[in-house]
C-alpha cells in the first residue's frame, strides 16, 4: 500500500486526528456509488450494516441539485417529484461521464440528458453544466461526485459519531486507470482517502465468500472450492466475474465489463416511443427539457412495470402539442433492446471462457444490481447455465456496498473473534496493460485477468540503426490497435548505445501491487553485464491528465516512427 508522498490540500484537516488514533485502526466504510443509486455500509463490530439517511433510505439517488448558492445531493435533499431531477438543475449519471473524453460514445449518449453535455470531439473533457436560475452553470463530474461524497461522509459521521476518512469504493470493471484517478481525485476533494477501489462484482464475491464460510466452517483448508458467476448490472454498467471460493478466500478468475446498463434500455425505449427523441432536445431550451423529462419519467415507469406485467399503457402529454399513447408489450421492450441483452450474454460467455470454467462447474449464479430484476436478464442467464434458479442469499441492491464494507474492515486490519473477517480477495486485472510497439499495435505486458499483485516484463528492440531514443507509450485495454485502448502515459528512454537495429535489448517491466498501483520500469539491458548502461526509469502510471485524447496523435505528429520499438521473438 504505497501512499502518495503528497497530500491534497483538502485532506489536511483530518490528518492530525488520524495520527492520534493510529492505535485503533479506523474501519473504512464501503460505498457503492451507482450511476443511479448509491448505498453506504460499514462493519459495526459483528456484521455489516447499511447506513440510512434522515429519510430512512438505504438507497439514495445519485444526483446533485444546483440551486442558488449551495448545491445539494441525493443524500439529504428531497425531491417532491421525479421531474424535479430532470429540470436541468440536477446533474446525475456522473459515473457515466467521469474520466471520459468528448469523443467517447458514452459521453455522446449522455447528450440527451436534461443537463448540458457539450462535446467538441477533440479528445478533451466534455463541458457539463447545470441550469441555475436560467443560467448554465459549468461543473465537472469530479466536482459533482465530490459534493455527493461530502454529503455521504457527513451522514456517516453523524451516525457513526466519528470522523470518516478511509473508504472502499466500488467501481465498474471497465473503468480505465485514468478514470480511477478521477474517482480518487473526487474522494480527495471530499476529504476521503481511498483505501481500495474494488470492481463491483469482486465486492459481491467477497460477500459471497463470507456467506460460504459461515455456512461451511469445515471447509477451511480442505481445498474444496465453489465456483460462482457474478452478474452485476445497474443503470450505467454491466459487469461479470467468475470467482473460486473456499475458506473465506475469493480468487477472482476472470472479469468482464462494459458501459451498458439501464440507462441504455431507457434511452432505446425513449427513442422507440418517440423516434425523433434526440432532436427534441437539440438546443436544451426550457420547454424542450420539460418535454424530455416527461418522456423520461413515463418511459422509466413503463420499464419498471414491465418487470412485473407483460404489457403496459404509456400515456404521456409532452406539453409541446405531441402526445404519446401506446401499449408496449414486454416482447416489444426486449426486441428494442436486443443488442443490450446480446452484449450481456457475450460478457458472461467471455468471462466463463477466460476463467476456463464449464457451466456445470459453476455452483452458484449471483445476479445483482438494478437490472437483475428484469425478466429477460434473469432468463438469459438461466438459459446460458441451463438452470432453474439464481442464488438467493443476497439483496441485489445492497450486495456491492456490503462487500465493500467487508473489504474496508479487512483492509483496515480489523479482526473478528468469530472469524467473520477471515476473508481475502485475490484480485485479477480487469484490463491488459502494455505498450505501443510493432507499428501501431498494442502489445500487452500484463494480460487481462492476471492475478494481482503481478509483475511481468518483455524485451523490445529498436527499429532504426543507431537509434538512441525510444518512446514508451503505455496503454490499457483489449484492442489490438493502440487507438482502441486507453492511453495511460508515456516517457522516453534516452542514451541507448548506438547499434544496428534489432540489437539493443530494451526491457519493459510492469508491476501492479495489491492496491492496484501500476509502475512501469524500462531500460536498456547490457549483454554479459549485470549493470545497465543507463539508469532504468521507473514511472507511476497513469501520468496523463485531462485532454489526453489528443496526446497520442500529437506524439505521432511530432515524432512519427523515429522512436518506435518492436517486440523481440522469444528465445526458447
Amino acid at each position: 500500500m504505497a501512499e502518495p508522498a503528497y497530500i491534497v490540500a483538502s485532506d489536511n484537516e483530518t490528518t492530525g486526528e488520524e495520527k492520534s488514533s493510529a492505535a485503533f485502526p479506523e474501519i473504512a466504510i464501503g460505498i457503492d456509488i451507482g450511476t443511479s443509486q448509491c448505498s453506504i455500509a460499514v462493519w459495526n463490530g459483528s456484521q455489516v450494516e447499511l447506513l440510512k439517511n434522515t429519510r430512512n433510505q438505504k438507497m439514495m439517488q445519485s444526483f446533485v441539485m444546483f440551486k442558488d448558492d449551495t448545491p445539494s445531493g441525493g443524500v439529504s435533499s428531497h425531491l417532491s417529484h421525479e421531474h424535479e431531477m430532470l429540470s436541468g438543475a440536477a446533474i446525475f449519471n456522473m459515473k457515466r461521464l467521469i474520466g471520459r473524453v468528448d469523443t467517447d460514445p458514452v459521453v455522446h449518449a449522455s447528450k440527451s440528458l436534461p443537463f448540458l453535455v457539450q462535446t467538441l470531439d477533440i479528445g478533451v473533457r466534455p463541458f457539463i453544466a447545470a441550469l441555475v436560475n436560467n443560467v448554465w452553470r459549468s461543473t465537472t463530474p469530479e466536482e459533482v461526485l465530490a459534493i455527493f461524497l461530502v454529503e455521504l461522509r457527513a451522514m456517516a459521521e453523524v451516525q457513526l459519531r466519528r470522523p470518516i476518512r478511509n473508504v472502499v469504493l466500488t467501481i465498474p470493471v471497465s473503468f480505465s486507470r485514468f478514470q480511477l484517478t478521477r474517482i480518487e481525485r473526487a474522494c480527495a476533494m471530499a476529504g476521503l482517502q481511498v483505501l481500495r477501489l474494488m470492481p463491483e462484482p469482486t465486492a459481491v464475491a467477497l460477500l459471497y465468500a463470507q456467506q460460504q464460510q459461515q455456512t461451511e466452517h469445515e471447509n477451511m483448508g480442505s481445498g474444496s472450492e465453489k465456483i460462482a458467476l457474478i452478474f452485476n448490472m445497474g443503470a450505467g454498467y454491466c459487469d461479470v466475474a467468475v470467482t473460486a471460493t473456499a475458506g473465506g478466500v475469493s480468487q477472482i478468475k476472470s472479469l468482464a465489463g462494459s458501459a451498458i446498463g439501464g440507462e441504455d434500455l431507457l434511452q432505446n425505449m425513449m427513442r422507440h416511443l418517440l423516434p425523433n427523441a434526440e432532436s427534441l432536445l437539440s438546443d436544451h431550451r426550457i420547454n424542450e427539457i420539460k418535454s424530455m423529462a416527461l418522456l423520461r419519467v413515463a418511459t422509466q415507469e413503463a420499464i419498471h412495470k414491465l418487470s412485473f406485467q407483460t404489457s403496459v399503457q404509456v400515456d404521456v402529454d409532452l406539453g409541446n402539442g405531441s402526445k404519446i399513447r401506446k401499449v408496449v408489450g414486454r416482447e416489444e421492450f426486449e426486441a428494442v433492446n436486443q443488442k443490450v441483452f446480446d452484449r450481456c450474454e457475450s460478457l458472461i460467455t467471455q468471462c466463463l471462457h477466460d476463467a476456463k470454467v464449464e457451466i456445470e462447474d459453476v455452483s452458484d449464479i449471483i445476479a445483482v444490481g438494478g437490472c437483475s430484476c428484469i425478466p429477460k436478464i434473469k432468463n438469459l442467464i438461466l438459459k446460458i447455465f441451463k438452470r432453474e434458479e439464481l442464488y438467493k442469499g443476497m439483496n441485489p441492491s445492497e450486495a456491492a456496498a456490503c462487500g465493500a464494507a467487508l473489504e474496508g474492515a479487512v483492509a483496515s486490519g480489523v479482526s473478528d473473534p468469530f472469524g467473520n473477517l477471515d476473508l481475502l480477495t485475490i484480485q485479477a486485472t480487469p484490463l491488459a496493460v502494455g505498450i505501443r510497439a510493432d507499428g501501431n499495435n498494442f502489445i500487452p505486458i500484463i494480460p487481462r485477468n492476471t492475478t494481482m499483485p503481478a509483475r511481468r516484463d518483455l524485451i523490445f528492440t529498436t527499429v532504426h540503426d543507431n537509434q538512441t531514443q525510444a518512446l514508451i507509450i503505455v496503454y490499457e485495454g483489449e484492442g489490438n490497435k493502440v487507438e482502441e485502448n486507453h492511453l495511460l502515459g508515456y516517457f522516453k528512454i534516452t542514451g541507448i548505445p548506438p547499434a544496428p537495429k534489432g540489437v539493443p535489448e530494451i526491457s519493459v517491466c510492469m508491476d501492479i501491487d495489491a492496491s492496484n498501483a501500476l509502475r512501469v520500469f524500462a531500460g536498456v539491458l547490457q549483454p554479459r553485464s549485470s549493470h545497465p548502461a543507463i539508469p532504468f526509469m521507473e514511472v507511476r502510471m497513469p501520468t496523463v491528465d485531462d485532454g489526453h485524447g489528443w496526446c497520442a496523435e500529437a506524439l505521432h505528429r511530432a515524432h512519427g516512427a523515429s522512436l518506435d520499438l518492436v517486440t523481440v521473438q522469444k528465445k526458447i
Partner: protein
Amino acid sequence: MLSVSNSIAVAPTAVPFAGSSHTASSRVRFQPLNAFASTSYASTENATSSYLSHRGMASCSSLYEILGVPSGASFQEVKSAYRRLARVCHPDVANFDRKDSSADEFMKIHAAYSTLSDPAKRADYDRKHLLRHRPLTTASGFSGYTRRNWETDQCW
C-alpha cells in the same frame, strides 16, 4: 524494495532434494506444513514468519517446495496449500512490516500454483524436474519469470 531478494537469499533452508530420493525429501518437506496448518493464522505471527523464512523461497527451491506440498500432491492439496499460503502472504493480510516482500512472495506462490494446478503445465514441469533429478536452478518454466531476473539484480 531490495529487501525482498536479500531476505530470500539468506534463507537458512538446507539444500533440498540434494542426493535424496523424492519420496524421502518430500516427506521431510511436508512436516512443517502440517505443523503450520494446525496453528491458527491470526495469532501466531511468529510461527508464521519463522515458517516462511525456514521454508525459504530461495532461488533453488522447486515449485512443490514453494507451496510446501509433496511432489505427488493431488490437485486438491495444491489448491488448499495455495489458499493457506495466500492467507498469510497476500499483501492485503500480511503484517505491515512485510508489505513489500509479501507481494513478491505471493507472486512466487501464485506462479507455482498456476503451474501445478494446470495438468499440462505440471506434467511439463515434472518432466524437466525429474529429468534433472534435482530442482531447477531458477524457477523457469512458467510464464512470469522466464527471462530477466528482476527480483535479484536489476533495479530495486
